[in-house]
């Protein structure tokens, strides 16, 4: 049996999308797979904390707790973490889970029942997964549906603002992947990161503003705004630091400062330049082992430029193909077990080395490391914990 052109899921999705209500996302998906006999379609969206996939509901604004699949130990979770289609035979048909992602930005999983399963169907549903992602991202501009689908709890105001500031959590281009995560996802305020890819070069920044909550989130918005402003004006790293420092010092709420790492990666040859403004140093990992800490003179945190220089050493390193660099905020290493033992940098290095040796993707590396830190503190982090991992394949 061959599927006719009019029954192709991608075609049907695009046609249904033209006239569908903005929030009738699951209905469009159901219409998309009708031509291949698909039914019981569900979209499972990854939650902000990257802990569970939440099934979409008819009425996402209702207060009822939605059904959720854990990332570890469910078929949907397997499709998500491995970025591959998973299918199992069940009751004479097939239950199928299709990853929905745009490049390395993983949004969720499409689940459905299908009457048959072969190479042709697998190809059709795989391309459907690729088509769903950009539609979903675009719809987030005019409906709250994707934002509501990705939360499992109420979010406080600081976190709401913070999330609207962030770029996609993961992005790949030209042999480079950057992936970040923030915890506690529903109460975060003050930790932030940003990046942009232009002309073969990746610019990135990790910022940890002082304190916690709304004031920190507003300050983070100001600092990230100044960062983007300078980046788009063609600032070099030192100019960027000065510009963000000036913005933070002009902020009326005192004290206003944030530690930061600012950097640039040339994706053609792996040359990375970076500097730290009072921020914990990044950890470099190569061939499954972490490298020793670089000897770097830091600048002051941004916003303290009245006390001394915010520009310290600007370091240049040449990455080797396969290298990874982990940036993190002190909330990761400061997380405590109930007995008071800090997570610490040594533990962080061990886990990082292990995950890199196991060949995990950058987004899986950050997810697993953050999960380990959260488990370490038994879910009670004392501060925001953010991690950004940059992998370069060459």
């Amino acid at each position, binding site marked *: 049996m061959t599927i006719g052109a009019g029954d192709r899921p991608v075609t049907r999705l695009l046609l249904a999308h033209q006239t569908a209500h903005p929030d009738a996302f699951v209905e469009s998906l159901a219409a998309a797979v009708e031509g291949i006999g698909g039914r019981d379609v569900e979209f499972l969206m990854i939650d902000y904390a990257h802990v569970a996939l939440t099934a979409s509901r008819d009425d996402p604004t209702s207060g009822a707790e939605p059904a959720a699949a854990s990332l570890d130990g469910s078929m949907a979770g397997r499709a998500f973490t491995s970025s591959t289609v998973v299918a199992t035979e069940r009751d004479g048909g097939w239950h199928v889970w299709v990853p929905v992602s745009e490049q390395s930005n993983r949004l969720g999983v499409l689940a459905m029942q299908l009457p048959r399963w072969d190479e042709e169907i697998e190809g059709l549903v795989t391309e459907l997964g690729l088509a769903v992602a950009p539609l979903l991202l675009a719809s987030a501009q005019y409906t709250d549906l994707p934002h509501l689908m990705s939360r499992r709890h109420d979010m406080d105001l600081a976190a709401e603002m913070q999330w609207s500031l962030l770029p996609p959590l993961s992005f790949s281009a030209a042999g480079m992947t950057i992936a970040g995560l923030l915890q506690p996802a529903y109460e975060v305020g003050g930790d932030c990161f940003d990046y942009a890819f232009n002309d073969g070069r990746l610019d990135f920044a990790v910022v940890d503003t002082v304190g*916690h909550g709304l004031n920190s989130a507003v300050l983070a918005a100001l600092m990230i705004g100044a960062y983007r402003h300078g980046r788009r004006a063609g600032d070099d790293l030192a100019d960027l630091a000065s510009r963000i420092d000036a913005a933070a010092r002009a902020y009326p709420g005192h004290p206003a400062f944030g530690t930061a790492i600012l950097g640039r990666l040339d994706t053609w040859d792996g040359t990375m330049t970076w500097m730290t403004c009072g921020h914990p140093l990044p950890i470099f990992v190569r061939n499954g082992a972490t490298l020793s800490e670089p000897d770097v003179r830091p600048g002051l945190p941004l916003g303290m430029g009245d006390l001394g220089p915010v520009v310290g050493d600007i370091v240049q390193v040449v990455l080797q193909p396969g290298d990874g660099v982990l940036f993190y905020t002190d909330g990761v290493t400061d997380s405590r077990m109930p007995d008071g033992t800090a997570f610490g940098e040594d533990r962080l290095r061990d886990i990082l080395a292990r995950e890199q040796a196991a060949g995990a993707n950058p987004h899986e590396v950050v997810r697993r490391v953050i999960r380990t830190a959260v488990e370490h503190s038994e879910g009670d982090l004392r501060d925001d914990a953010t991690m950004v991992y940059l992998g370069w394949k060459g």
Partner: protein
Amino acid sequence: MATHEESVVGDQPMTTVHAGGPDGCDVTEVVMTRNVRVATLEGELDISTVDEIDRVLAGVALADHMIIDLGRVSFVDSGALSRFVQAARRHRAAGSRVIIADARGAVRRVLAITQLDAVLPYAEDVDTARSLAASLGES
């Protein structure tokens, strides 16, 4: 619950502030000498203790040099550091200085990472901080 006591030891007035942290083990005190005062902080200093830190640091007149003794502090986060920085700015504006002293372990490391040890200034122990303060002169 924080308490505030004033007493006189010998010829030198002494102000002591006891500030109970979440686990009840944070004790802070301000010891006055002539124009160099030592603010001693204890325990874990994080976002939950900034009000106590502010109160202790505000207990030192801006005209005086202030040594912040961290010898018995086991943890500081950026919220706590921000209070030191604010105190340093206030004292600078008044012509005096804040000197951080005797940070250990993880606390010492945080001061190095944030470069605060380079700008506040920093002394390895309280006696050195006193000499440093004396060399800065009367304000």
